């Protein structure tokens, strides 16, 4: 699970980093002392969780939620207990921690978040249950020297971008420093076909193929001439 910390107070950021360091698979991708930098990061990077202070200069935490349009889950952190009620107005706010954050309360928040994610994964997997039992269920990718588990069922497509690949899952994008070839070998799954030199697609999610494009949920991906015959053969066989 990846996260960022947004707080203008150095002590608050240090405390959160310390608390995060106690959680084995929680990777802090960045810390920001103002809204501008945080919003900019969130628009360019997929993050699972944002620890967001409410009382920030210029834009407060609630304004960040509104202006960034982030779909990341958010845990609000604040010294103001009276904002708790307002936090329920935001769908992606999953918890509310009052400073100074107690380690036990922090662990409880992370535990609650995991339960919520598991519940959402189960709900989502009802849409994809037909694709189960076709091999391994997960791959592991390395982000900042941490291995992150990615359910194969939930991968829509993988896009190569220079030295990185972006793994687009149902819910998020995961940026990994590796090659498309390496990911294809790791997946080792016949559901995944190369449709372009930069794209590998999970054929279970293809809804349409037309005019040199492959439609996957709300995404339109390029289909190269060379890869078209193999894709059509695969889809006709299905």
């Amino acid at each position, binding site marked *: 699970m990846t996260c960022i910390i947004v707080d203008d107070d150095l002590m*608050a950021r240090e405390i959160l980093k*310390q608390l995060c360091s106690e959680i084995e698979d929680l990777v802090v991708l960045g810390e920001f002392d103002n809204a501008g930098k945080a919003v900019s990061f969130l628009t360019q990077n997929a993050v699972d969780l944002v620890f967001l202070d409410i009382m920030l200069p210029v834009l407060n935490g609630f304004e960040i939620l509104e202006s960034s349009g982030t779909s990341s889950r958010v845990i609000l952190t604040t010294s103001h207990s009276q904002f708790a009620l307002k936090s329920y107005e935001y769908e992606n706010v999953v918890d509310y921690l009052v400073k100074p954050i107690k380690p036990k309360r922090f662990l409880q928040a992370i535990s609650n978040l995991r339960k919520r994610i598991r519940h959402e994964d189960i709900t989502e997997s009802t849409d994809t249950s037909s694709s189960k039992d076709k091999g391994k269920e997960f791959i592991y990718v390395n982000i900042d020297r941490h291995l992150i588990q990615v359910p194969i069922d939930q991968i829509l497509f993988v896009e190569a971008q220079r030295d990185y690949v972006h793994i687009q899952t149902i819910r998020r994008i995961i940026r990994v420093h590796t090659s498309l070839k390496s990911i294809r070998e790791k997946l080792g799954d016949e559901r995944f076909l190369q449709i372009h030199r930069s794209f590998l697609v999970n054929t279970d999610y293809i809804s349409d193929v037309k005019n040199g494009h492959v439609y996957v949920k709300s995404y339109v991906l390029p289909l190269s001439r060379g890869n078209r015959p193999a894709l059509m053969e695969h889809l006709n066989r299905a």
Partner: protein
Amino acid sequence: MTPSLAYLHELAPNDEGFRKRLLHVLVTEFPAEFDSYRNAVAGQQWDTAVHFLHKLKHKIGILGMPELHALAEEHEDNLENGFSPLHGDIMEGLRIIDEFLKAQQ
């Protein structure tokens, strides 16, 4: 109303380096924020006073002083409305912290 470092030990019982680092930030930041708060109240600059009191409030919490923390929360609301009846009590608490942190140096 006595400051304590128990919270730092609770956060990082086996990491003395972290505790020292955080204590250093406390010792470094507190006096400047205390002065800024005091000057802002003296100059009736209520927004600035709220800003610095908010920062001090977090430190009061870290030093395990729940009564003073509750008082600071109430005082913060008062300051936002331009009055400061609790200023004297807050100053007394902040002076205790100031002495405590000086002794940690």
